[in-house]
């Protein structure tokens, strides 16, 4: 009988034990190659963002994280990734973000890189569109939610107001009900209570190694770089990075691509996304408001991370296409008040390196479509990034963050009333 039982269950048992051994082992499985890094750097893949292995290696090599959302995928010839390749920048941007990623997703991903960014640099593109009254949409956060990064958070985050706030937000925005222990641990963090022994052992010795090995094994598969767009861009750029010439190229490309509509929107985008509803959109955005949002507090979590790890950050605030805004009724005054508020949050805490383009929305061929940077807009970014990214090591930084920016008061205060905020 035992022989037959062994014949039936033996293979399953052996396979199961091998799998468990593999997942729980302390081995590092599969180090990403140079090629993988360069593919991942422009892939904007959710798996790369949700993982750790590839990013950690990339930030130790010559990649600088460029954090943002949908604009990163607008890869024309003047996009920083193309420029960095063409003119052999010492350090290349590692794009992190996709439509739907906002501050909280980026915070979770940043904190999980732990000390790999200590004393290094980062670029953050702040979309005003993140700062809508309801903040990040739960389904969007859920889509980019990484249990792996959460295990890092649960093990490493020290109790503080921002840790408690972060845990609360993650609990609010995720729907994962299958893992009770992780959820309970998050609840403890949210209340400032240390994790229990069971939680610690389970998360540290079972959950995290399992997820880590899955990340090491699988997140390198199925990523697609944007070689085609890169190649196309490399071809049209001049041999030497002469600003006059570059501006000329940007203008020509923009002119050709935005010929069929009065807004300066790329033709393909206009045909597909705008034209079908163009009448409905007139005056449709007059009530849009980016001044009061939980996003301001989520954003503060990123700033806290940068301060703790002494990261030098280049912030970029892109504008909205002015002709489009005029048509949809989106208020430039409101955008200016948003700008004032976010600049206050940055500068009062010592984050002074900001490219503010809020009022550049009227420039020709600056935007690729309605809210996304294009040709001449990217060029302006490039001109600031190129010197910033020359070195990977940050000079000494002096940040003095405060928990006030996590408060409900700060989330709600309008750009005109920040003077009353203390």
């Amino acid at each position, binding site marked *: *009988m035992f022989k*037959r*039982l062994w*014949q*039936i*269950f033996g293979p*399953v048992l052996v396979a199961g034990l091998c799998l468990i051994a593999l997942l729980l082992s302390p081995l590092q499985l599969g180090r990403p190659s140079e090629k993988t890094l360069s593919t991942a750097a422009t892939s904007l893949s959710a798996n790369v963002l949700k993982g750790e292995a590839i990013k950690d290696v990339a930030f130790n090599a010559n990649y600088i994280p460029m954090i943002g959302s949908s604009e990163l995928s607008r890869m024309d010839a003047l996009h920083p990734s193309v420029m960095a390749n063409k003119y052999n920048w010492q350090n290349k941007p590692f794009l992190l973000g996709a439509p739907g990623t906002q501050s909280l997703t980026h915070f979770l991903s940043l904190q999980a890189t732990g000390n790999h960014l200590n004393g290094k640099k980062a670029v953050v593109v702040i979309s005003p569109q993140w700062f809508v009254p309801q903040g990040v949409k739960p389904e969007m956060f859920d889509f980019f939610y990484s249990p792996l990064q959460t295990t890092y958070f649960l093990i490493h985050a020290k109790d503080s107001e921002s840790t408690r706030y972060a845990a609360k937000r993650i609990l609010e925005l995720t729907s994962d*009900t*299958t893992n*009770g222990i992780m959820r309970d641990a998050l609840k403890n963090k949210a209340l400032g209570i240390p994790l229990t022994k069971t939680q610690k052992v389970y998360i540290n010795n079972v959950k995290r190694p399992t997820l880590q090995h899955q990340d090491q094994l699988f997140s390198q598969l199925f990523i697609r770089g944007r070689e085609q767009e890169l190649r196309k861009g490399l071809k049209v750029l001049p041999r030497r990075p002469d600003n006059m010439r570059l501006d000329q190229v940007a203008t020509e490309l923009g002119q050709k691509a935005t010929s069929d509509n009065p807004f300066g929107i790329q033709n393909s985008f206009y045909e597909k996304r705008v034209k079908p509803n163009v009448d409905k959109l007139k005056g449709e955005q007059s009530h849009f408001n980016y001044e009061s949002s939980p996003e301001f507090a989520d954003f503060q979590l990123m700033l806290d991370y940068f301060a703790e790890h002494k990261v030098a950050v280049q912030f970029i605030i892109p504008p909205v296409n002015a002709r489009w805004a005029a048509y949809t009724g989106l208020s430039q005054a409101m955008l200016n008040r948003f700008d004032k508020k976010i600049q206050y949050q940055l500068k009062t805490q010592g984050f002074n390196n900001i490219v503010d383009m809020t009022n550049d929305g009227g420039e020709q061929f600056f935007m690729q479509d309605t809210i996304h940077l294009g040709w001449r807009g990217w060029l302006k970014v490039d001109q600031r990034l190129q010197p910033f990214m020359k070195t990977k090591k940050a000079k000494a930084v002096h940040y003095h963050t405060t928990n006030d920016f996590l408060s409900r008061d700060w989330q709600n205060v309008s750009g005109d009333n920040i003077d009353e905020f203390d």
Partner: protein
Amino acid sequence: MPNLQPYANPNYFLILGVALMPLVIGLLNGKRWHIYETLVSLLFLILIFDGDKVHQGIALIGYVLFEGALIWGYTVYRQKHNHTWLFDLAVILAIMPLVIVKFVPFLNPGSNSILGFLGISYLTFKSVGMIMETRDGSIKKFEPWLFLQFMLFFPTISSGPIDRYRRFKKDYLKVPDRDHYLDLLGKAVHNFMLGFVYKFMLGYLFGTVLLPKVAHLAMASRGGFLDISWGLVGYMYVYSMYLFFDFAGYSLFAVATSYVMGVETPINFNKPFASPNIKEFWNRWHMTLSFWFRDYIYMRLVFFLMKHKITKNKVLIANLGYLTLFLLMGFWHGLTWYYIVYGLFHAIWIILTDVWLRFKKKHKAHIISNRWTNYLAIFATFNTVCLSFLIFSGFLDRLWFH
């Protein structure tokens, strides 16, 4: 307690494996521990119906009590009398909860009846089957304990396969001899592994990875004749593959779990896409459902029509049977135009197939029939089945009317 839907994630299989271990040891040693078995069933029922599903759990308890009382009552009555009208009444009462559950969202879109729970259709098949066999005299007395075990047999509770009371009872009351049980365990492991490939690899590939893409493509290229596009053709095949691998995978798990418990639940799929015609297809696709309809609807209707001499035309009788069977099956799936069209489609198709088979028989000498015509038949049947699944999917409703 966490809420775990049947066969949905690795945790479920882990808990299942641990919980069944003592049963395996018992059965290998010639013992069936009914009490332990019942506790395991109870645990899994609670896992399915706890948390935010607790309303369904209550509905399930109410349902089983109602059907139990009904069948009990009918059995007691049947021991003395046998009136047709009372039999009819018992059947109507037995399907009433299901009818209500199907009608509420139809009359009141967006809402669901409080009587509903996961698996109500499958339990209804079981109870109606019991009433019919009681009328036939095959089931002579009501055994409350066995009735509960049969109805609430947890491996098959949510989506079948649909077992029969007398078959289940036989397995439940005996201990399989060791060699036979070892065979069952071997088959169970095989079914579990194949099920993993079906449901979690192929089903995932077709359902989660590809289906949204082709759906998007089809929606984006609307506008032509009947909105037909390559995207729609893609949707038809991708959905058909998804439907098969997801459901066949689930059925393999249910059968495998039953085998481990020493109960030989009938299989549900037998290479359906290799069928050379639609009649054969229904002998291989969702078999326990089509056999249930064959035995309890089709055969009984044919018998009724012949006995009362309503018509002597055998072809007509068969066709009426098909029409009734498939229309009922359509209604059972839900009260929407596409389920009913799906039923009609299959009824007409099977009637036409009969016409062809009779023609072929008569002109045997002149019709070529070899390996290649058989492949051609399989190919044609497969594609027509996929077309019917496109109707069944409800995607056309979205494509045309929303």
